[in-house]
């Protein structure tokens, strides 16, 4: 089939996301929700996620600049971040959030800041890879007129 290599590529990329620990089971759940009426459902969700979390990232950054640090508020933001991240299975980001929360609870400012940097990195990586994946998947779909892999 024509799109075959493309489809295979998409499948491969998708699998890599799981293998690298970027995504977990929840992502599959969302994929299963996707259907004809909502062929881009997962992508829509992820887009909503970026919008919401970019705001959170700003909030956290602001909080981290305060002196003294308000760990309670910080924890609140991270909690939300974590909640959103679980929605589509952003595994690594979620793990960083959990760690971040631990530091908040421990009142460890240093740990918080370090973890936050790590969190941002993971977040950026995920975003990049997911976008590439979705793009490829869309392409494959167009070529194929078949449903995306997965």
């Amino acid at each position: 089939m024509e799109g075959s290599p493309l489809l295979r590529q998409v499948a491969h990329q998708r699998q890599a996301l799981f293998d690298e620990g970027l995504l977990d089971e929840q992502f599959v759940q969302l994929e299963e929700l996707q259907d004809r009426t909502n062929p881009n459902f997962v992508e829509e969700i992820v887009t909503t996620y970026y919008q919401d979390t970019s705001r959170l990232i700003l909030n956290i950054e602001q909080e981290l600049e305060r002196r003294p640090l308000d760990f309670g508020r910080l924890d609140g933001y991270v909690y939300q971040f974590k909640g959103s991240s679980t929605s589509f299975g952003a595994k690594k980001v979620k793990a960083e959030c959990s760690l971040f929360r631990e530091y908040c609870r421990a009142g460890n400012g240093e740990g918080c800041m370090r973890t936050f940097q790590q969190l941002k990195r993971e977040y950026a990586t995920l975003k990049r890879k997911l976008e590439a994946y979705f793009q490829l998947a869309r392409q494959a779909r167009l070529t194929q007129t078949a449903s995306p892999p997965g």
Partner: protein
Amino acid sequence: MENGFSSPRSESFPAGLRVLVVDDDPTWLKILEKMLKKCAYDVTTCHLAREALNLLRERKDGYDIVISDVNMPDMDGFKLLEHVGLEMDLPVIMMSVDGETSKVMKGVQHGACDYLLKPIRMKELRNIWQHVFRKKIHEIRDIEHENIDIIQMSRNGSDLDDGHMYCGEDFNSKKRKDFDKNDDKDFGDHSTKKHRVVWSVDLHQKFVKAVNQIGFDKVGPKKILDLMNVPWLTRENVASHLQKYRLYLSRLQKENDLKASFGGIKHSDFPPKDPAASYGHQSSINLNQNDVANGYQFCGSNFVAQDAETKNNEGDLKIVSEIKRTLTADVSDPQKMRSSQSFSHSFASLETEASYPAFDSTNPPEFSWSENPETQIKKEHKTHLQLEDGYSQLPPHGQQHQIPINQLQSDPAVTSVLSLTGRDMSGSIEIKPLFNECKSKNVSHVSPTESAIDTFPIQTKSQLINHQSFEPISTVISSMKPQGFNLSITDLESCQRNLTSASDPNFAPINEDLTVWLQGDYYTMNFGQSIDFIDYDDPGFLAEVPFYLYDPLTSDFQCPIDSTTECPIVDQGLFIA
């Protein structure tokens, strides 16, 4: 909503389940919406708790279940949970990323029927309908329980003389329409009798006293428990009772408002004979009048009130049937219905005992909480209710009961909105005046109870109402029955006795019912079992009864219920006479 449950959804239950999802996280909101839609549910989403409450209040009966996140910016999820439970009595499921035991426990304590951890899977959402279903069943069972209790009470012939418990339970709460058909099959099994706490008049009085002491706003189950100083009572018992009480108060409030507007509508003319539809559900108001007689019924027959079929006479029956309805929700168990009917029947026995039987047979099995069974009962009641002649007087009485109920019922929405006004039932049961007036002489004691009871149980609305109503009734009863009407009267006979004594505001039977009702754990009452109300069919009973009914009726039959009770709610199935 009159016949409550017969919503179109019922055929395909759980499809079409109306879910309200509340979550401030837009990502999750989208996902949940999608998932729930895939389950063929009818989904409404909102970001804020306040928005959710508004939606719920606007459409009183617009939703079956609420799913809410714990953490929300404008209002704590637990608070929302409490509000929903009290005002609307809907099952609420909490969600959170955080699975800490303390949080989960808090959720349960606040009344959540489930606590889901995010990420949430589809399969978890598929089964949420069980909570809706369960609630209905419980309502029914509670009603049945009540009926049983009532019967027992009357049997005991305790000194109920005054405490006529008005079992005006409002079964209408079974508004869970979608259930009626589908769930019947399940009802048959009531064997799981739960261990329930019987909220006797005294106990309830203690409760109310404690609540007042603490201050209604600051009240909490733990505090109440401590103040009450009842060793065998658990915090859970108090919590659930408190919940009901709150609801009851709201209802009361509503009722009063309604009453004011009504002004004694129904009250005035109790065409006792009018078995008319009012009995059934919606015409609860009508029932009031006739219901006087039904008042008796009230005790037992609440169950069926739901159906308009039974109309007026049944009004009382309605109440009873209402109660029964709830009980009978177990449609699957016609037995119950029968019993309930008999129960009411007994009360109503004044008249037509015969008709009763018909009831039984007709109970449509599927009436889970729905009216079917009840209707059946109602019908029966109707006949019975025909107290008309002697009883016509009764209706006022019954009405009283009904009125409150009706009021409650009249507005399902209202009921839901019941704002806990903190009316203080405490101890004095405001309702009391109602009765007193009505009954003036004889029934004096009864009145308060009745009113209370009426308002309470009759709530067509939610199941919770049933529960709730119980509470106030206790109070009422207690107040009503100065002498310690023992709520625990489950002896119909005693009721009967009371009735017979005519001179004595025998509301007792009714009260008994009420008490009965109050006492148990409404929620868990597993009535279901064959209540042998049949005792009531004592003709002698009838004879007596009227009299107190008369009095109140003739005298200032306060029947606030009647008039005010728009009883539409009652129609729902409350026994609105």
